[in-house]
């Protein structure tokens, strides 16, 4: 049997997707179906004086209008319960849901939403981190101290706009500065932006007369939806059924639980009738959670030879109006604040900050694209100051086996991978030896920039996954697991792991694309690039469990000891004579003797995995283990810069990741390229722009610009394979990592080309012109 790994297996849902037959949440037909429309706030910060729905309620087809008061005193939030599902008393961002209309037709719901009269009394909005941090600031949340904390390690500061703080203290800063010959500083600003998944968020909900809340949703977190809906509406988890069909792109944005709560409120208002809530593109941008912004101040000290001796860093995350997952984002930034480098002395503070902007949730990279933009710009500034090659500076500082990370986790080859090898590979991929800044004929400049990256998982310490493997009477295998197919072919990867473990053809493994919390075993959620690892381990365990059962039954069937048997090609065979075998189809539902007697019964393999050895971070030093391993790598961007106009063109973008083991080369390349494209979008154009008063100025693709075909560079992707010994077949997570180093690599290339310092994104020609001193 050939291996099922390292080969480009076509994803299982490919044919349905390319023929347009694949069904997403909003495609599912259901009758009768009522339609929900959200009325969103037109103010960024205001007291809500009244919501008059009388006229709207009387409009044709309208079945119910739901307002904040209909949700009682309910406050939502997975970590800090600070968010009313519909605004009550005040609105805190432009686009915040204020009311819901449920109507027979979608256009009736839209028309009625426009007829709701809302009276606001505008308050001064907090639109920047700087405004949020002034002494005696306008408070986004006046009752911060009263909010219920769902986790022990969250530290809100009532009377301020800070809802969480993470500290990292390592080594001796005084000594670190004393040892440094050179210091560099930077102050960075990153805007909020959108996930812009192709499928906007969508949900269906009904409540049966018996009280079962049935939800179909485009979500990365079906089990968290179940848990939170159960908690918010005080119903047992068994009375909440969550279905997730194929999801049309998520990027972290569909890990948050928002529309599901609104859909339950809407369905409840119409006696449990099935309601559909599908975001318009504009509402997906303005109303549903976004990608965080950041302000950061960094200072690095280093010896003449490049070794970094001290790092002082302060990160303020612009989380917008509600905390959602941002406390974990603040933690993730702190945990990886020294990147894949050996910084002996670190003083780092990472804060979650409220502003009157759309609230943030996880976004591909989970804070790391922002962190690495700052860190890797600093590394280039330091290289410049020291007169060192940027690759050399990174190699000098690379974590070696036995070094401690920022939160004092010991680095090993297995948990970290091989940065120096990635750097070497990248150097040749991007042809670094020809020079990083080349004057072209015609006055243009070709320049290259690079950046390193690394990321660990930052899951809860007890995040877990489970899977079952069952057999069809024809001997083929069915995998049941709750990894949501959000695009990267993860369910195909799980099938590969199963097939490889049972040494059978992956084409004979079936894995359905829908997740149903009523039938699938538990999985924490499909985030953090952790599915390959966590679910992969559960699937492998389930496959091994099934294999044990097949061997035991095979031993009965073939009247021999189990140790004489082997499993391959859907057969249990005698090692000594492979032609003596029992086929899976003869064992799958129990083995039947010639006389009709049967033994065994259907084989079901089960596997579970829970993260082990993880700890919370120490409140004062940050010491602790936030993830089991890292995926690291190095990236580069080549641009062609026009010094007369300050415009530039993307020529090449390159990534080398230490993937541990590449399970599926083409999907691996695809997922990394996709990440790179997103990273270049952040680097070059994507941003939310707030007009005075906090009104979002870019809530459609007319003004929110994304990279288009024709603007893409040539993508170069390569992998290093340093196995992570505890991972399935050594494979590390790679789903997010393509995005992480791109903004820094692009900024480093432009900084090199134009001879300017770049400390903000996106890098537009106007920014370069401004940095050039407005000639």
């Amino acid at each position, binding site marked *: 049997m050939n291996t099922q790994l390292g080969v480009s297996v076509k994803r299982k849902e490919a044919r349905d997707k390319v023929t347009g037959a694949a069904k997403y949440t909003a495609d599912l037909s259901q009758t009768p179906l009522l339609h929900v429309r959200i009325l969103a706030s037109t103010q960024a910060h205001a007291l809500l004086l009244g919501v008059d729905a009388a006229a709207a309620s009387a409009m044709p087809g309208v079945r119910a209008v739901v307002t904040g008061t209909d949700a009682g005193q309910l406050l939502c939030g997975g970590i800090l319960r600070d968010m009313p599902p519909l605004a009550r008393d005040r609105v805190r961002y432009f686009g915040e849901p204020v009311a819901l209309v449920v109507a027979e037709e*979608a*256009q*009736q719901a*839209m*028309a009625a939403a*426009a007829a709701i009269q809302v009276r606001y009394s505008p308050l001064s909005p907090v639109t920047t981190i700087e405004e949020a941090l002034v002494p005696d600031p306008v408070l986004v949340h006046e009752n911060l101290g009263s909010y219920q904390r769902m986790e022990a390690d969250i530290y809100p500061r009532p009377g301020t706009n800070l809802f969480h703080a993470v500290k990292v203290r390592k080594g001796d800063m005084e000594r670190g500065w004393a040892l440094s010959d050179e210091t560099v500083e930077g102050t960075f600003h990153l805007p909020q932006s959108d996930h812009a998944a192709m499928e906007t968020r969508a949900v269906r909900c009904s409540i049966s007369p018996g009280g079962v809340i049935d939800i179909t949703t485009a979500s990365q977190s079906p089990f968290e939806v179940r848990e939170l809906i159960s908690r918010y509406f005080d119903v047992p988890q068994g009375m909440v059924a969550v279905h997730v069909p194929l999801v049309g792109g998520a990027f972290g944005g569909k890990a948050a639980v928002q529309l599901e709560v609104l859909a339950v409120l809407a369905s409840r208002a119409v006696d449990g009738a099935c309601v559909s809530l599908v975001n*318009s593109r*504009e509402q997906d941008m303005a109303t549903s959670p976004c990608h965080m912004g950041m302000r950061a101040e960094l200072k690095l000290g280093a010896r003449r030879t490049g070794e970094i001796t001290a790092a002082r860093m302060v990160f303020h995350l612009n989380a917008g109006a509600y905390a959602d997952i941002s406390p974990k984002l603040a933690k993730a930034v702190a945990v990886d604040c020294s990147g894949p480098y050996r910084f002996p002395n670190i003083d780092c503070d990472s804060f979650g900050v409220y502003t009157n902007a759309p609230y943030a949730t996880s976004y591909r990279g989970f804070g790391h694209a922002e962190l690495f933009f700052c860190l890797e710009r600093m590394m280039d500034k330091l290289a410049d100051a020291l007169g060192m090659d940027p690759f050399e500076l990174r190699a000098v500082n690379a974590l070696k086996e036995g070094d401690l990370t920022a939160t004092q986790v010991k680095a090993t080859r297995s948990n970290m991978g091989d940065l120096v090898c990635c750097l070497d590979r990248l150097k040749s991929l991007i042809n670094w030896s020809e020079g990083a800044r080349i004057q072209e004929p015609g006055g243009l400049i070709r320049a290259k920039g690079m950046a390193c990256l690394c990321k660990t998982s930052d899951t809860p310490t007890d995040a877990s996954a489970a899977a079952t493997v069952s057999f069809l009477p024809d001997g083929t295998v069915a995998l049941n697991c709750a990894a949501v197919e959000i695009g990267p072919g993860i369910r195909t990867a799980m099938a590969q792991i199963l097939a490889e473990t049972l040494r059978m053809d992956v084409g004979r493994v079936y894995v359905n694309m829908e997740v149903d919390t009523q039938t699938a075993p538990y999985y924490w959620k499909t985030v953090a690039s952790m599915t390959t690892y966590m679910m992969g381990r559960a699937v492998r365990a389930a496959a091994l469990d099934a294999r044990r059962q097949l061997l035991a039954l095979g031993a009965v069937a073939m009247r021999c000891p189990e140790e004489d048997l082997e499993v391959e090609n859907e057969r249990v065979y005698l090692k000594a004579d492979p032609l003596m075998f029992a086929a899976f189809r003869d064992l799958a539902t129990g083995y039947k003797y010639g006389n009709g007697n049967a033994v065994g019964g259907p084989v079901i393999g089960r596997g579970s995995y829970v993260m082990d050895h993880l700890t919370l971070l120490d409140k004062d030093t940050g010491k602790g283990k936030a993830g089991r391993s890292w995926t690291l790598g190095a990236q580069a961007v080549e641009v062609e810069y026009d010094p*007369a*106009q300050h*415009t530039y063109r993307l020529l090449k973008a390159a990534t080398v990741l230490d993937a541990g083991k590449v399970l599926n080369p083409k999907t691996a390349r695809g997922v990394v390229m996709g990440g790179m494209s997103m990273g270049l979008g952040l680097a*070059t*154009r994507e941003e939310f*722009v707030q007009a005075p008063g906090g009104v979002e*100025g*870019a809530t*459609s693709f*007319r*003004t929110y*610009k994304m990279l*288009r075909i*024709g*603007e893409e560079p040539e993508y170069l992707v390569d992998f290093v394979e340093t196995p992570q010994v505890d991972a399935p077949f050594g494979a590390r997570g790679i789903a997010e990592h393509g995005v992480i180093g791109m903004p820094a690599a692009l900024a480093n290339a432009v900084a090199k080309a134009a001879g300017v310092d770049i400390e903000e994104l*996106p890098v*537009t*020609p*106007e920014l370069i*012109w*401004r940095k050039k001193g*407005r*000639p």
Partner: protein
Amino acid sequence: MIPFDFDYYAPETTGEAFNCYAKLSKAGKRPVWYAGGTELISMARVGSRTFGAVVDLKGVPDCTRLAAERGRIVLGAALTLTEIARSGLFPLLGSTAARIADHTIQGKITLGGNLAGTIQYRESALPLLLCGARAHVMTAGGVEKRPFSQVFSGRLHLEEGEFLAAVDVPEREAALPHCHAKRTRQDKIDYPLVTLCAVRDGGSVRCAVSGYGSAPLLVPAQALAGGAAVCGELAGEAADSLSGSGAYKRFVLENMVGQALANLGVK
């Protein structure tokens, strides 16, 4: 999705269209002229525009004319940008049209819609302003041919109930040496930071820009003669927008004018 109902009319002559609109107007139906629909549909679905009826001009032959006759090129106002670009009859307008929105939308947006719409850039006005165009305006008394510059300053100025049926330009002017350049904040497909059109007629150059100010405008001849000082002349017009600051637009315009003059062989 458009959340309100409206009536749809498809007249077949200019007169029928004019009368249809007048009747609807009188009946309080709040009619709008309709052609490509890109702007009206977008605005209606986000609730920033409502109407009770649309009068679609695409079926009016006068509005879809595309011809060179008696020394002038006639372009119907309901021609799409793609049709104008593909015709090759007025190369400067074709180049301009081919850089408005994206390829898909160019197949919907019409010349008249681009001139009469609320999106302020109206880039297709630039070649018309530069090349002696006339506007064919449908009025109560029939189609009147007026100098384009008389009906367009920043935006189309017509009486309620009138509509633009077509434009024409002298063939000679449509064939003048010309250049078109569009600069955006960053993307190839975007609203203009500055779009510039220029023609050379003998020794003189005429130039018009969009995106720079709050509406399309002609660059005064004395400003062009000033070369790099052009921005001084127009400094007051530069407007901040999502695409860029006024100060940056001045820098960009200066570059673009210099480049345009060089391309047209003028020092």
